[in-house]
């Protein structure tokens, strides 16, 4: 594990702006990015990575490593929540366990973006089709989480046992962020096929602006993450340990799978980051609606207050170290 890699990662604008945000909360500066500006950046980032991913997917086609990678990604997002659920049941009831498990089975798009920036800085190649994996890993964990609740929750008085598939699927793939990401991916794909000239015209917006907007958004993420810390204390040490150890373990499994399907180092890192990251957009939205019995502060504080910062600061370079150990570079 290369500590200079961590330092190099920390000294990039996105991570530094993230720190600027957390530090603002720590020193009680009144810096704030009022609603709905963070929403603007979050919508923009989803639209832009989706669109760019669609372009790349069209370029690379659906052959080669695309199908195996995406399939592995979906399998991971089904398997990880079950694993997490088993661990969480040690301390939590079915509702809370399932909701937190769903969050860790799903992904964080901003962590993914930061990993892409990291790879670019390190001059390590990666493929655009990984965005398809990102998009397709968002929802399955939600379905697993809801199924766990339906199957294992104590029979409620009003007999809510019948599984409402329609509603589950709806929450899983039609929540705003998943929908926008998938939709933009599709639009990028279609456009690259039928109207390549328009792609160039999108480039200043979806491409050039991206890095700066990412920094601005991470400034806000820093503020929000730091504001989550107090409620994290209340969550207890088990959950705190979980929020660090589980991503590391998921990353480890991720590396083994990446090696098994022979991903190249860049793609492998992104795959690992998808496994290790946890959702604070799509999953909380879905859980709030379908499992209100779970305590929102548990899954929000851990994913946003701990796992997210850990991943973008230490996680990404650590996982890179892991990838370099386990996966032979392209010769």
């Amino acid at each position: 594990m290369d500590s200079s890699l961590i330092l190099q990662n920390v000294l990039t604008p996105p991570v530094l702006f993230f720190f600027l945000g957390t530090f603002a909360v720590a020193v009680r500066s009144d810096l704030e990015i009022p609603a709905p500006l963070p929403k603007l950046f979050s919508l923009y980032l989803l639209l832009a990575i989706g669109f760019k991913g669609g372009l790349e997917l069209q370029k690379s086609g659906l052959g080669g490593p695309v199908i195996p990678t995406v399939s592995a990604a979906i399998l991971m997002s089904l398997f990880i929540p079950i694993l997490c659920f088993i661990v969480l049941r040690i301390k939590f009831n079915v509702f809370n366990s399932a909701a937190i498990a769903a969050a860790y089975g799903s992904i964080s798009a901003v962590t993914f973006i930061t990993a892409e920036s990291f790879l670019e800085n390190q001059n390590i190649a990666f493929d655009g089709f990984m965005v398809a994996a990102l998009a397709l890993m968002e929802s399955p964990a939600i379905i697993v989480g809801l199924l766990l609740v339906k199957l294992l929750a104590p029979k409620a008085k009003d007999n809510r046992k019948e599984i409402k598939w329609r509603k589950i699927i709806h929450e899983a793939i039609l929540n705003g962020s998943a929908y926008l990401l998938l939709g933009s991916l599709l639009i990028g794909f279609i456009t690259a096929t039928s109207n390549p000239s328009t792609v160039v015209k999108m480039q200043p917006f979806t491409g050039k602006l991206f890095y700066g907007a990412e920094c601005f958004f991470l400034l806000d993420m820093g503020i929000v993450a730091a504001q989550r810390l107090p409620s994290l204390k209340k969550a207890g040490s088990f959950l705190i340990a979980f929020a660090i150890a589980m991503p590391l373990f998921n990353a480890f499994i991720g590396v083994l799978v990446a090696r098994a399907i022979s991903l190249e180092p860049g793609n492998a890192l992104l795959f690992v980051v998808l496994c290790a990251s946890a959702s604070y957009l799509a999953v909380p939205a879905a859980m709030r609606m379908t499992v209100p019995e779970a305590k929102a502060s548990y899954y929000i504080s851990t994913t946003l207050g701990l796992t997210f910062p850990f991943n973008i600061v230490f996680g990404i370079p650590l996982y890179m170290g892991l990838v370099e150990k386990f996966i032979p570079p392209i010769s």
Partner: protein
Amino acid sequence: MKRLDLIFGERELDAMLTALEAAEVPGYTVMKHVTGRGPERIVSEDMEFTGLGANAHVIVFCELEVLERIKKNIKPLLSYYGGVAYFSEANPL
């Protein structure tokens, strides 16, 4: 007449308005992007970009009989999802 103040999670707004319409309210007013603290949860502005959303504050001016119907319709929602409801006297100007 009565004035009813409802405060609850933004994500339940659609369900809540449907319940109000079912109670045949003469109208309602909605304020979103509202934050606060209840017995259990703290809702802060930053929640708006996470999937959770902030609170909504709904005001209904209506007759007592409508209020009774509203009560029947929204009590289950409030007890399942959380949120508060208070009413007081009000007179049309």
